[in-house]
């Protein structure tokens, strides 16, 4: 009632053209019940978790997890989850991904989602540096069945909020008809590979960032800028997003591109010539990018959110996520299809920086790199 009255008043004030796009919701000051005189029915209608009808679980993620042209795990997960739990799973894909929630928290707007799928170490650091309170809740392993089955090497959150659910490895993909990729980082500096490598902007793409971090792993904090300077002299091309670089690679602009070690899974499915999709792990290593999920501290339905996290860790769900997201499962006993390992390559030595190593350093490393690269 009050809301309707307000809209009428706003309309009379002359902004009627905008009203249909506006809304005014009563602000909940934390004092949950009986803060306002009347309105019992209207406000509880929007709250979830009440026994009236089935509950709603709101899960935020990045778009390609639920809507990709090839395959995405989102629709399958929703269907399976809903068939088992008396709940509606609602996918949310805010354009700014995790920054959307950081910004929301910073502006003091309530978080209305239950869980986030698609966290990595850098995002967690950004959350911790920019949100005063808690954005995500630590997961009590007792509350999430299967939590202990996650491979310990994939854990990336010292506060145990993020639960890894899959991982990818960033490597070189090359066309062996044009060039055989070198085996080491130093090899990339050889004149025969001049202009042969396509990489991505570390700020615009996860692969670009992983490759930059891998060079820092390989060359050290003091040596990576020097290495990149030589790489730039040898004609490395740093384009914007992964799509830009991969499109250029597909068009034969260069014989090597920074991409995922699962490239052949797609190539095989598309019936492409695998000789154009060879994988190279430089120095025998690949940078691991585990993806995690977490429950929001203020989740409207915390129990359901825990059940969801647990659901995501079941062996058969892990296998489906791996296949549909084309990544590696986070547990060891996921029943993967037999040809999965044939096309999805794993490095002998995965490398990655820990939360502590990246904290306070990532921005500086990237800024120093970007300044040097853009100045040349």
């Amino acid at each position, binding site marked *: 009632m009050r809301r309707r009255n307000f809209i009428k008043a706003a309309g009379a004030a002359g902004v009627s*053209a905008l009203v249909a796009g506006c809304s005014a*919701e009563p602000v909940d000051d934390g004092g949950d019940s009986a803060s306002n005189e009347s309105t019992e029915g209207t406000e509880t209608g929007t709250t979830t978790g009440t026994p009236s009808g089935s509950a709603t679980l709101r899960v935020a993620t990045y778009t390609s997890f639920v809507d990709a042209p090839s395959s995405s795990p989102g629709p399958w997960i929703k269907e399976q989850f809903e068939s088992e739990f008396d709940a509606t799973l609602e996918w949310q894909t805010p354009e700014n991904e995790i920054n*959307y929630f950081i*910004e929301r928290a910073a*502006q003091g707007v309530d978080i209305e989602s239950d869980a986030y799928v698609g966290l990595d170490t850098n995002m967690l650091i950004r959350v911790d540096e920019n949100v005063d309170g808690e954005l995500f809740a630590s997961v009590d392993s007792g509350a999430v069945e299967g939590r202990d089955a996650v491979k310990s090497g994939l854990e990336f959150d010292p506060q145990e909020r993020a639960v890894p659910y899959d991982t990818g490895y960033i490597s070189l993909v090359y066309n062996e008809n044009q060039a055989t990729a070198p085996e080491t980082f130093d090899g990339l500096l050889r004149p025969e590979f001049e202009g042969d490598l396509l990489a991505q902007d570390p700020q615009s793409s996860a692969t670009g960032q992983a490759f930059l971090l891998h060079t820092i792993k390989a060359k050290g904090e003091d040596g990576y800028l020097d290495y990149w300077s030589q790489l730039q002299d040898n004609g490395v091309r*740093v384009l914007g997003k992964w799509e830009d670089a991969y499109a250029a690679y597909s068009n034969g*602009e260069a014989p090597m591109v920074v991409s995922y070690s699962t490239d052949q899974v797609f190539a095989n499915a598309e019936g492409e010539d695998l000789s154009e999709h060879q994988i190279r792990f430089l120095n025998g290593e690949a940078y691991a990018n585990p993806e995690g999920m977490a429950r929001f501290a203020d989740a409207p339905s915390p129990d359901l959110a825990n059940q969801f996290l647990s659901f995501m860790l079941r062996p058969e769900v892990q296998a489906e996520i791996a296949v549909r997201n084309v990544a590696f499962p986070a547990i060891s006993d996921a029943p993967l299809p037999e040809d999965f390992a044939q096309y999805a390559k794993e490095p002998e030595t995965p490398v990655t920086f820990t939360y502590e190593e990246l904290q306070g350093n990532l921005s500086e490393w990237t800024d120093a790199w*970007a300044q040097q690269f*853009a100045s040349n």
Partner: protein
Amino acid sequence: MSDATAGGDERGEKRTDGGESLSGISRRQQTASGWVEAHALTLVAVVTGVVLLVLFYYPIATVLVEAVVDDGELTFAPLAGVLTSRFYLVEIIGFTAYQAALSTVASVALGLPGAWVLSRFEFRGRETVRSLTILPFVLPSIMVAIGFVATFGANGTLNRLLSLFGLGPVNLLYTLPAIIVAHAFYNAPLVTRMTTAAWESVDARTVETARSLGASPARAFLDVVFPQLVPAILVSATLTFVFTFASFPIVLALGGLQYATIEVFVYYRVQQLAYADAAALAVVETAVSLGLTYAYLRYEAKQQTAAFGAGAQPAPRKRLLPESLRGLSARDVLSRVAVSGYGVVVLLVFVAPIVSMLLSSVTAPDGSLTTRYYEFLLQRQATAAAFQVKPLPAVLNSLLFGVGTLLLALPMGVVMAVLTTRRYRGRKVVDALSMAPLAVSGIVVGLGLLRGLVFGFEAFGYRFTVAGAIAIVAAHAVSAYPFVTRNVAPLLGNLDAKLVESARSLGASRTRALWDIELPLVAAGVVAGAAFAFAISIGEFDATVILATGSNSYTMPVAVERYLGRRLGPATAMGCILLFVTSLSFVVIERFGGRSRGV
């Protein structure tokens, strides 16, 4: 609103005594409509102000304030940080201005001959070609990148052509020229369209007079025609500079990070949540663009001398393909050769990338022809879940938002043009500020819309938010109306003030004078502005994805982005749907607009 109330009162009266109040109704309605008519300009101006405030100035203020306020205290540290950094000033801002200047020169050089051909020659399909010049405007940058790689890449069309002649290969990609040509691809059509409109309103009689006084054709062109084209050239050049100064994804896709522009660093800082730095960079960026716009507007104001009253009578067009070769002068032959040369350039720079996009939507990985990407779209349409993007709703939303944008941006733009062609102190500042939606970083606008509108603000115990379809249309109109203003204002400024004065002295309201006298005379500008407004709406991405509530308000460019994956097929297929729908819309809009122009 008061109109409706008045009507309601009358109806109440009517029940008591019939006959008399009937005339009362019409009288009162007349007065009411008279009141609306008398105040229509003011009303539209107020609506324009509110829309700008809510969808532009308030949102960007929530971001830009971070450049000067830290923890509630005034600070100049972020701005000083940018302005004292050699890296930012020289490597980034200096380079950004340099590439924008080159891009502007290239766009003008590539666009002007187009205006000459379209306004001076008659050929089959001229109207259609003219309509289609808007296409580059609506293309998502990833589509342009795909088209350019396929055209100018190592294995691209250009190199294959050159190898036929035993030449090449040329390596154009990942160089500064690649960026500049891509910028010209986007902006030369702007120059062409705006200059063509000006050329078509050059009165043939003025040229004839000059010729009869003994001027050579070249002299007559330089002294009579060219001065009338200069404002159009300069306004399109200014807009080109402003756009290319804020260029971002296309620079990284076709050049690479060593050609990073200022907008790239605005994006970085926003990603890192380093808002003070982002805001400081954006403030400097906006200041450069607005400063240039202001300089242009001062120039435009000085030019309003060549007043014309009645509609101009353009010189008749020459047939591009003469009926017989007999009687052709050397000049005629030379001009046809020049047109052919220009045609080759157009084929390479504009047609080839677009054809490459079409081809890549029907080419399988092994090079054979395939319809599988269009089948993907059909399958998506049939089976996509509610939270996924479907092709058909995206097409319909784009068209709906486009029409909505037209309905809002046309009155906004025309009224702003009327306001800014009146004489008062500081009006050029108002005029420059009304151009601000073109000059402010799209990334800052996106963040501002998120903060200011999607999250909303608290007052009186309520949280007010603005999102959804109507907010998207309003945001599109904010980006689009400056084009209407810039197309209409110069023409309006050139009108003889006596026309309006005599209409007013005969009792016409200001609105009626505008509607009956001025608008028909500047119809060409209104139609040109409408085309840009529609195109801006179709191509808009940033505000749309921020303001969309759920997947039901996504548009064609959003679908293109969603379908982008390891294979380019699905995205290019959607991109070609975008091309097709847009082409059709423009041919229709301009046919319709062209007819109404004759009235």
